[in-house]
């Protein structure tokens, strides 16, 4: 039971983002208390449902029965049922509307907004958004690599190995290209096999074991390997490993193809 209590608390902290999100939650709790006293209607619509959701969420028995079985790792998503932003916005609106119309109210509204902004973190920033490289909103290199491989298709699909930063992008552009490993390296979608893990680990190194990568690639019928030359330090000529350089993509990606025969 104690483990469940700590696990639920961890989920909560994970959801709010630790100290970063604590002030918004303090505002939410204050707003919720205000809803309790504003009137019967708001108690019914905002206060009690929110309290019940919190009771459900923080209930270790519910976590043990439902959370660990069906919501492993995503138990925090239950907090979406809490109308956090609606409760805060409702309380602030009521507060603002109690002020006399005119400059005082305008200043009050600006101060409330500034308060929310200062205690939170902006969604739109250089950290989250950047200028798009193409209409797909995928790295241009992923599209160029895919185009090279698709132009040289020998079967209905080709299997390729790409640097870590591109494993989530290639298949969003083309389904004619299969990856030796993809997001399964992080434990998602499907299981990863041992040889795939070995290639993944090597591709994460600045000086990868090219012999190991090419041996596994050949064994798995993987005709293309892409290296990022701004990171990987590999010999330019891989013909001794059975692969030849066929194209470049982006500023630093080099595509190698298996030499026939």
């Amino acid at each position, binding site marked *: 039971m104690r483990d469940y209590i700590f696990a639920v608390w961890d989920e909560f902290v*994970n959801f709010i983002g630790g100290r970063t999100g604590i002030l918004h939650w303090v505002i939410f709790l204050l707003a919720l208390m205000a809803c309790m006293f504003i009137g019967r209607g708001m108690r019914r619509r905002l206060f009690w449902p929110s309290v019940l959701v919190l009771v459900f969420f923080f209930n270790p028995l519910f976590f043990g029965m*439902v959370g660990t079985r069906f919501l492993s790792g995503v138990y925090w998503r239950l907090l979406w049922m809490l109308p956090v932003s609606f409760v805060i*916005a*409702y309380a602030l609106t009521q507060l603002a*509307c109690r002020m006399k*119309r005119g400059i005082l109210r305008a200043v009050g509204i600006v101060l409330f907004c500034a308060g929310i*902004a200062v205690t939170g973190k902006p969604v739109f920033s250089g950290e989250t958004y950047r200028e798009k490289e193409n209409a*797909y909103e995928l790295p241009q290199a992923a599209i160029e690599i895919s185009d090279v491989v698709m132009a040289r298709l020998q079967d209905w699909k080709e299997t390729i190995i790409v640097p870590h930063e591109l494993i989530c992008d290639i298949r969003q552009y083309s389904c004619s290209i*299969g990856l030796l490993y993809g997001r399964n390296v992080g434990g998602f979608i499907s299981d990863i096999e041992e040889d795939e893990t070995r290639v993944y680990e090597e591709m994460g190194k600045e000086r990868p074991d090219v012999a190991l990568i090419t041996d596994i690639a050949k064994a798995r019928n993987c005709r293309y390997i892409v290296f990022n030359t701004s990171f990987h330090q590999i010999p330019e000529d891989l013909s001794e490993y059975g692969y030849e350089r066929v194209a470049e993509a982006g500023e630093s990606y080099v595509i190698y193809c298996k030499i026939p025969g």
Partner: protein
Amino acid sequence: MVYLVMLFVAVPMWTGVIWVKILKIKGIWDQILHAWVFGFVTILAVAQLILVPLVALKQTLTMALLLFQILLTVLASVSFVLVLCRRGGVEKRMRQRRKPEGDRRWTLVFGVLAGILIFIQAYIPARYEHSDDDDARFVAEEVSAVVHDTMYQDSPIGAEFLYWNTGEVRKDLTSPWAMYIAMSCRISGIPPAVLSHSYLPFFLILLCYAVYMLIGKCLFREDAEKTALFLIFLSVIHLWGYTSTHTLAAMLLLRIWQGKAVCAGFMLPVFFYVFYQVMKREYKAGFVIFLYVAAMASCLLSGIGIVTAPIILFLYGIVDYIYYRRWRKTLAVWMAALPCAVYLLYYLMG
């Protein structure tokens, strides 16, 4: 763009006319908002109804699209008939108390400010690039479906034959949001990555704010000035709500094209709104009926939709019972969780 406006605005609105008539919604703005929101939910429910059995039967995307279009045509015809059956003469309009000139000026100022903030939130995600690793599964599934004309039959990673009951993809059988997007791609002719990243955010964020506006109108009893102010505060909370990658703000403004984000940003607020309408002494029974459709639609979006919809129905049902002691109404609300229970059981037994 015309196709997209048809797909995400015109068709949902036309479908939603059925609900506007059933619920006898008055006032042009209320009718538009209800028609759009309720129509979109109905379309999601229809997609869920046909996609799950078709995926299980290994049918093609073309087959699913054909059935989907037939059902949408039926719904559109019903709407058409309802519009034609409208009684002649001018409908009674709700007479709103006219506010003094000074008050209306503030309403206008707040309304314009709210409109600008909402437009910024819809425009930036469509204009700029944000990458999310979960797209490696969802968008990849959509690409395979559109190109191979299959549904969940190849691995989102290796492209080899997989079928839905392997790994994480198994969850998608009961929540085939990706196939709904794939159908939209087929209709519009736009590649899945382009539709998901460049166009969907614009439409879906506006749709989410349509729900929030309905919530505001309901909480403030149709007071336009307070509703506009409510939307301003809501926008500011969302714009500065990135305290973690899990918050509603992050879901709404960073990856709204994913089913789980639509569940958090759109579907659960729809439930809130419907409950605010149902939790009254005098309520329209049509809202309770709509809960069944909403529960079905939430299953399409994500596994979390299948879990949260019954919980929220249960909790609000309890609150309603405590206040009004009408066990039949509470039972009717709880019964709306049945579609979710069926899909959950199907997932667990599959």
